[in-house]
């Protein structure tokens, strides 16, 4: 993996780390007692999870009537949440697969957490299509399996049916990818552990020994999975966008949706990665591994995708005007100035205007600005989905049926609760697995470690006394 690195590149690993120090630093959170911040966060997250369970139970028990959707607006917060979570789930694969193929070294600092985030986000996303039916036990009807109901198959024309496969495929591949990456790291943790933890990690590590053959297979598998995931990055949200694009409703029926949804997804995914990483690096003391460099790189992606999304918004407006089609024109006029105008302006402000701040290097390397911006973008992207779904439905063809919708506490509970579910999973993850890919970060140490990249540290070999030992444990392996 070593490539020529321009001497002008900033280092990605700070603190003149040795291999051993890396192991120590990253394994520590899985070994030490949880910090106060972690416990506090966990309590909050689990409370959210509790709210989630309660809201789901309430919905299933009482029916969708406990929500405020109506005859005109059949989807609201439920599908908004679904699309939002799926979107967030895009960063992981992008970072793992596409950036891997592009040999972007900075990905090593964040890919583990991003992939974990992807998996948890997809878990959250996957709940909503099931919950939104109310009678969750009917979900089996959507699967094409030989059945006793005669030759009765699902409707292969329906985008909702495609969704099932898009999401489940994505989830499976992401999970495999993530776990594959975790295997050598679990082995590292195993080698340091004793007692029941050793047994646990021993199982999790699948008997990884760090042999050359293991490494070779591991590399091949990573590459194959990256190859499989790369089209998925594009396909999943494309298919999700088909939920709208294949309809006949003005404001949904647009060909721009697939690229626009994908860009938006990456945009929101990176924002969520940033939100998480900025907190994680602070709490788990990983500032040396998740550096300003990482943050800046991601901010650049955000700037790019945010601008793509902005162009898409403007294109939509232009095309609706240019179409000469009254329904289309009205749909977009209504989006901007209609009853839900505030959500459109919220979306514009958060998604298009605010990321432009990142043209300034000062701002895109400022952690506080980045943190607030990442939250902003996630709010904006939630608004975007809400604008597309609820605003469009609220004012479609027949003025007689126009309606308005605001959620009940149950719907809000489901959304807030799903955040609880997500953070609970994520917090548990930070306690169990190394949040930075140890093996991968070690692989770029010699090319991106500050002691190697910065000219004044070239001769500083004094700290590398335990390098040999590290090799013996198989934590890094052969390159």
């Amino acid at each position, binding site marked *: 993996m070593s490539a020529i690195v321009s001497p002008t590149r900033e280092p990605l690993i700070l603190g003149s780390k040795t291999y051993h120090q890396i192991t120590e630093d990253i394994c520590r959170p899985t070994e030490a007692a949880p910090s106060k911040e972690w416990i506090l966060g966990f309590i909050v997250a689990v409370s959210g999870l509790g709210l989630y369970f309660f809201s789901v139970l309430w919905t299933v028990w009482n029916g*969708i009537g406990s929500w405020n959707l109506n005859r005109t607006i059949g989807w609201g917060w439920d599908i908004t949440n679904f699309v939002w979570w799926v979107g967030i789930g895009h960063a992981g694969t992008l970072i793992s697969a596409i950036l891997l193929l592009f040999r972007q070294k900075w990905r090593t600092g964040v890919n583990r957490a991003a992939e974990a985030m992807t998996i948890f986000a997809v878990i959250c996303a996957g709940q909503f299509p099931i919950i939104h039916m109310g009678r969750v036990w*009917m979900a089996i009807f959507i699967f094409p399996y030989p059945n006793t109901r005669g030759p009765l198959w699902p409707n292969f024309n*329906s985008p909702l049916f495609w969704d099932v496969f898009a999401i489940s495929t994505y989830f499976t591949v992401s999970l495999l990818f993530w776990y594959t990456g975790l295997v050598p790291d679990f082995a590292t943790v195993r080698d340091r552990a004793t007692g029941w933890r050793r047994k646990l990690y021993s199982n999790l590590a699948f008997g990884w020994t760090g042999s050359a053959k293991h490494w070779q297979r591991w590399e091949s598998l990573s590459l194959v999975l990256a190859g499989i995931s790369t089209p998925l990055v594009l396909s999943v949200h494309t298919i999700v966008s088909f*939920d709208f694009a294949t309809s006949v*409703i003005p404001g949904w029926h647009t060909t721009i949706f697939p690229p626009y949804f994908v860009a938006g997804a990456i945009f929101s995914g990176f924002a969520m990665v940033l939100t998480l990483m900025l907190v994680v690096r602070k709490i788990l003391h990983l500032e040396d591994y998740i550096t300003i460099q990482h943050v800046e790189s991601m901010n650049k992606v955000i700037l790019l995708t945010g601008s793509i999304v902005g162009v898409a918004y403007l294109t939509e407006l232009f095309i609706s005007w240019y179409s000469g089609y*009254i329904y289309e024109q009205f749909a977009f006029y209504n989006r901007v100035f209609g009853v839900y105008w505030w959500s459109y302006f919220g979306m514009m402000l958060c998604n298009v205007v605010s990321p432009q701040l990142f043209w300034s290097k000062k701002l895109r390397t400022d952690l506080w600005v980045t943190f607030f911006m990442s939250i902003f973008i996630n709010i904006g992207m939630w608004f975007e989905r809400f604008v597309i779904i609820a605003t469009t439905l609220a004012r479609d063809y027949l003025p007689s049926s126009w309606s308005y919708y605001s959620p009940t506490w149950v719907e809000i509970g489901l959304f807030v609760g799903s955040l609880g579910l997500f953070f609970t999973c994520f917090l548990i993850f930070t306690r169990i697995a190394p949040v930075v890919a140890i093996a991968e970060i070690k692989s770029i140490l010699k090319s991106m470690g500050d002691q190697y990249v910065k000219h004044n540290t070239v001769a500083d070999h004094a700290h590398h006394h335990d390098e040999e030992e590290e090799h013996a444990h198989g934590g890094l392996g052969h390159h």
Partner: protein
Amino acid sequence: MEFNNQEIWIGVEDLTNDKAFVEQAKQEFPSNINEALQSENDGFNTNRRDFLKYLGFGVGAATIAASCEIPVKRAIPYVVKPDSIVPGVANYYASSYVNGSDYVSILVKTKEGRPIKIEGNGLSKVTKGGTSARSQAAVLSLYDTHRIQFPGAVKEGQVNKMTWSALDQAVKGKLDATSQVRIVSHTIMSPTTKSAIADFQKKYPNTKVIVYDPVSSAAILKANEINFGIKAIPNYRFDEADVIVSFGADFLGSWISPVEFAAQYAKKRKVELEKPEMSRHIQVESHMSLTGSNADNRILVKPSEQGAAIAKLYNAVAALTGSPSVSAPNVNEKASKALTKVANELVGAKGKSLVISNSNNVNEQILVNGINAMLTNYDETIDFAEANLMRQGDDSEVQNLINEMNNKAVNAVFILNANPVFELHNGDKFAAGLKSTSLAVSFNQTIDETTSVCQYSAPANHFLESWGDANPKDGHYSLIQPTIAPLFDTRQAEQSLLTWADSAPQTEQPMYDYLRTVWQTNMFPKQREYTTFPAFWDATLHDGVFEIAENKTKIFAINLDAAAAATGITQPNSSKDALEITFYETVNMANGQHANNPWLQEMPDPVTRTVWGNVLSIPIKFDGSQFLSVSDLKDGDKVEIELGGKKYTCVVVRQFGQMEGTVAIGLGYGREKAGLCNNVGTNIQTAITSNSAGLPQYFASNVKMSAKAGHDDWFACVQHHHTMGVTALDNGKQINADEKVLAFQGSLVERTIIRKSNLKDVKELVKVLEEEREEHRRLNSYTLYRGHEDQYQSGLHWALHVDLNACTGCSACTVACMAENNVPVVGKFEVQRHHEMTWLRIDRYYYGDVENPNTVYQPMMCQHCDNAPCENVCPVNATNHSSEGLNQMTYNRCIGTRYCANNCPYKVRRFNWQDYTTADIFPWNERDLMGSTLGFSTEMPYGADNLTRMVLNPDVTVRTRGVIEKCSFCVQRIQEGKLSAKRESRKIQDGDIKTACQSACPTDAITFGNKNDKESTVSKLRKSELNYVVLEEVNVAPNVTYTAKVINKIEKLDA
């Protein structure tokens, strides 16, 4: 030993031909079989382990069985199956719907002995097969859980059970030949009831019948008595009139006989392009009534100006016909100008015009008669040959009774199908009088406001359980026959009266025999067709109606003193700024008689589109950039109005077409003792005043309206946007007002939803439609997909057509659809958040002048698109297309993603948000109809009890929670029609199958049929140049089409 030579043998015995075996085999019944069985039984020993197994299984099974609460379903088979009942096949019985002053000749559909649906009786020359929303809903009132179930004494709003004989004794004990008895009733249309009362009077000669109408038309009766010597409502002929002028009379919605009038009216409103002619209808009123909304022109006058407006028209017509004018107060300038032009129209259509008024001022009605007389309309568009007998009430009599009662001049009062305590404006006085009367008996079916202050309740049968008759018009008789045995221990009121008069027939079915006797004596001699009474009876009972031409005498001497009458008209309110209010009868509620009928409560008012309550309509103005209303009130805000020193809290609706300086509110709401639906809306009854002649006046001047005083959080209105582009002037330029408010010019009117024109421009409309059609078809021909039209070219392909010119918005179809298709009632809270379940709704749009717009009603149901957008998005194929073009729903396949509903351009799909029909009994999630949460209370949600569920149509699946439903084109009726045709070995003919909405429609606005049959009516209508498809450019290829709306408007009438 001889070996068996056969190739096949069974065992050694067979092979060796063992003697015993051969013997055994020869016998058909082996002798030892019993022994064998016996020995087997002996071997059937239960050991200890088996015993434990059985014990364990038994206890386990019993425990499981006992722990599951299995609902008890009673099914009682016929011991002897009645000949007439074939399970699954409906029986129809001709009957009559009579309630208050409504009359509709009906057929009652019964299934397995249960009446489940009301259909119109096409044999009636009065209602001609049409129905009203009220009559459609009547079947639900049969299964009203709040009906009184036994006779008894009334104590504190409860009926304490008595036997009928005990009640009879108690009543008779208080009566003697000298007793002053009063029977209070709404108009009695029944000759048999009248006969029973006459028999009662024989025993108690001091009996008087006090008749009043829920909403009074007494002035017409009195004016006709003065002018023609006939105290009756004349026979109006809207189908003969070219120009119709109505002063406030809502003849399409609630006035006298709307079903009859609507049918006549629609005849003259349907447009044929070869001969583009239609009647012209001018409505003079202050609030937007259903009839006014159908008018070509509306002239706005304040309620107190109505008399002056009538006088103005009188003078204008007099001037043109050379009659003397009368002196009268002035009407507002705009109306004055308009009425002068209208007079020209009327005189131009002499003898072919019709002027009517709902005024309850005798002098104003005399002037109206005078106008009709000058126009020589009598015996042309108005006659007394078939006088209308649906209103016979005289309000002064009931007012006298109140005095009599309070002066203790009355010994007994019987309440016969009337609720004066609620209906009368001084109902409290009536109640006080009733309480002080020594005997007060109510025949009413529920413990209503009047019954609860009576001493005894002698509950009458529901009309669907009764024998009876009606005489709605001279020469028109119809029968009422029971369609189910009385559900409760009730007795017909007539029978009670006869019993108390000791003249009831002592037979098994006294009312049947009594009715027959009445008909044998009175009706049978009137005809020549049948020679024996049984033949006549059977035929009449089968047809439901008996119609003869009697009393064909013409008019007459007219004794009309217009000048004198003009002095007695209502004087317009002198203060120009005073706010005036109109009290009007709503289409659904009458004067509160239907308050306990959830179908009618949930039927959106055709004009205001609100449900579950009456609303105060307030005027709306456009100031060039936005819509304004008094005090900046918004729909659903609450205000307090003060009139006559009393205060009423009302919910307001900003109503287009409501005259400035006026407000209006519906009558008959806010009943406290309706039963199930109590305190729905505002009780405004007490605000009504009587004029000097003792006739109630349905308006008031000098109303004070407060500013916003709260908001109705559950303001339930099914349509939030009301216009399809209303025009206004903006700096002298004509703009579309609501498009200016909403978005940009053209954003509404360029939608291909409503196609409309004025009659004189109809050719232009045809051209526009043609161009549009061509453009749409051109656009739609660009497709990625191979068409599948060829699949639909042969065989049956169902299509529906709605004539927007015939549709008056009366909503009979809406209620009929609910009844036919088991559409659940969801209550106010649910409708408020747009959870109504109606499969068929009537969209109402205003267009034209912002201050005085025209209206179009568009019945909207599933369009059964051949390129249905709902079908391809359903992930589980729960909605799909039949080979006959039906868009079908498979309820038990639906998983509830709601994508189909989102993707429906017409928004006709309905989701079962909760377990509304309680098909699965998830009662904990439901609210009651008034919106209170049921929570963990033991009260059942509406529709869960077995009585109410008797109304369900067994042919239609009751939907469960979480599935989508929508109009099916009454697929159960299609199936029935197909099966009948098959049974009779013939093809389906046009008209074999009628959807519920079609058969309910009084104006034949809806046509259903096979569009592949070139000769079918629907095919012909689809070929009309005025036919159009809503949203054709979306290319969903609907099978529902509409005829463009054409009006016959006089432009610049009031300029």
